[in-house]
């Protein structure tokens, strides 16, 4: 894992001597199957994952260690995940918090966000969506929203929603831009067409209707990247999905 770096746009000098710091993530989830999958998905060179399977062990961990992002299930054995958020805020810990809950109840969602959670994701979700959300939280936390994302020759100004390739601006549509960010957040992973469709159109739209459109969006992104002199990073993987990776 080398080329993906995040740096502050107002201090570009940092890039030269920027040392890659691993992000620490805590996964609080009582459902073993789900916890293992998330852990496996996040298990990368630059990411350290810890897990907690109940309220008490989660509370013990957040009392001692600081995390870049905590993936927090709300319905836990021994307690409510919302109390962990309260504990963090009471101690003025600035960990990023992403709530994952089967209860798509608005009350929980609003309470969670009011208490200071950064985002809320309803089960079931795709791991790629989770990864994109966690990445976004960490990015926001580290650089206060004013930041840029660089992947080799691709430079993305997140505040201005602008993409430059080799310092030349390239125009992407809203969906193409969103898809590009999604790919970069999930670099090296196979993203299924279902996950892409849900990311682009939400879950209220019949996903099967949109598979053909994914192809044309990706074709456009690829074309724009290549025409601007970038490498072609998007690979189709055996009819199932796409992967954004170094060639």
């Amino acid at each position, binding site marked *: 894992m080398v080329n993906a770096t995040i740096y502050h746009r107002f201090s570009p000098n940092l890039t030269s001597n920027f040392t890659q710091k691993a992000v620490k993530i805590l996964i609080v989830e009582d459902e073993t199957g789900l916890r293992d999958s998330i852990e496996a998905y996040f298990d990368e060179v630059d990411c350290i994952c810890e897990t907690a399977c109940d309220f008490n062990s989660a509370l013990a961990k957040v009392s001692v260690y600081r995390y870049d992002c905590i993936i927090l299930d709300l319905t836990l054995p021994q307690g409510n995940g919302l109390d962990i958020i309260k504990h963090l805020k009471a101690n003025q810990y600035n960990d990023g918090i992403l709530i994952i809950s089967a209860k798509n109840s*608005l009350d929980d969602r609003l309470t969670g966000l009011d208490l200071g959670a950064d985002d809320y994701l309803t089960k079931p979700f*795709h*791991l790629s969506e989770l990864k994109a959300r966690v990445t976004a939280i960490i990015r926001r936390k580290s650089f206060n929203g004013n930041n840029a994302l660089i992947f080799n020759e691709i430079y993305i100004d997140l505040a201005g929603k602008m993409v430059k390739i080799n310092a030349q601006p390239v125009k992407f549509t809203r969906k193409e831009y969103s898809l590009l960010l999604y790919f970069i957040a999930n670099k090296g992973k196979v993203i299924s067409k279902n996950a892409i469709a849900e990311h682009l159109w939400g879950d209220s739209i*019949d996903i099967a209707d949109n598979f053909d459109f994914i192809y044309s969006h990706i074709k456009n992104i690829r074309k724009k990247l290549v025409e601007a002199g970038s490498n072609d990073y998007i690979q189709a993987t055996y009819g199932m999905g796409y992967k954004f990776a170094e060639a």
Partner: protein
Amino acid sequence: MKLLAKYNWFNLTVTVIIMGFAAIIYYFTIRSILSNQVDKALLVEENEVFNYVKLNKHLPQVFKSNHQQINFTIARQPVTRQFIDTTFLDQKENELEPARAIISKVNVNGENYKILVILSRVETEDLIEVIFIITIGLITILVMALLIINRLILGRIWKPFYQILEQLKLFNLADHKPIHNVSSTIEEFIDLDQAVGAMTLRVKNDYQSLKAFTENASHELMTPIAVINSKLDTLVQTDQFTEKQSKLLNDIYGTVARLTRLNKSMLLLAKIENRMIRDDEDVNMKEIVEECLYQHEEIIQSLNIDLIADLQDKQLHTSKLLMEVLLNNLISNALRHNYANGKITITLQPQQLIISNTGKSTFDIDQVLKRFQKSNESEGIGLGLTICNQICDNYDFKLQYHYINEMHTFSVNF
């Protein structure tokens, strides 16, 4: 027929019949009493004639009178003494009046005379008439008094009944308003009130637990679905797959996505019915329509659909989520049931939103509004319009469907 009307009808019929009989009996009684009196007066006259003849040995002189007439004629045949009904010629007014007469005989100096005393009954007839009018007047007044009293008393007595009935009419299972007790001093109504209260409470509890079950079941299903989903996401990272394997994986992905949507729709429906979505805020409908069209732009382009959108600004104080769901469903439907090179018209006005589209087949809106009803070619899950309808119900909007000029037209009146 209303209870009051039925009761009044019955009551009045009986009253009128009884009063009618009473009037008839009354009439004949008075008539016979007055006849008797006239007869007595005739007897008095007869007696006077007898006394006069006895004393003076000749017939009395006859004076003309207004109401009375006495005739003496020589009787050739034997005369039986009897009372008869006859007429009397009133010479002043020159008209015939009903009269009563007595036929009798008297012997004056060995000669038999027939006596005919006629007494006009016009006065008694007048009296009967007056009495009859008074009686009819009394009946009328009595009937009217009965009507008014019935109305007042019945209205008051049956008030609790109508209150209970009104509440039953407004009763809505999904509603959280309780049935209020209706106070009454009448035992039957107290019973009815308690029975209705107990019944609605029981029905509501049953319904609530059924809904809670649906909701809990959907919730509990979410976690295993999440695990399947995440395992699939993990699986596709592992290795190269053959074409056959990836086809299978795609099918599983698709099915899980379908299951998820079905489950989410059921949860959403339960929540809307329970009015658990209460994040009302000022929502700009125009923005939502535009966003929704943006979400569907690919399919609109690929079907080459002629989209005509006439959108005016419209603010609503509602849940943004629900408005998005409403528009998403309506617009998805308009696209799903459309054909290539078809047409969609979306009009947003301050009073209403109209979405009309060309489409393949007609359908019965009442059927479609039922859960899990869908047309054969539909790939949806059959809850879309049910959800739309429920959302509109919650906000007192009116969702209507018409088939106009070969366009399927849905309108939402705010």
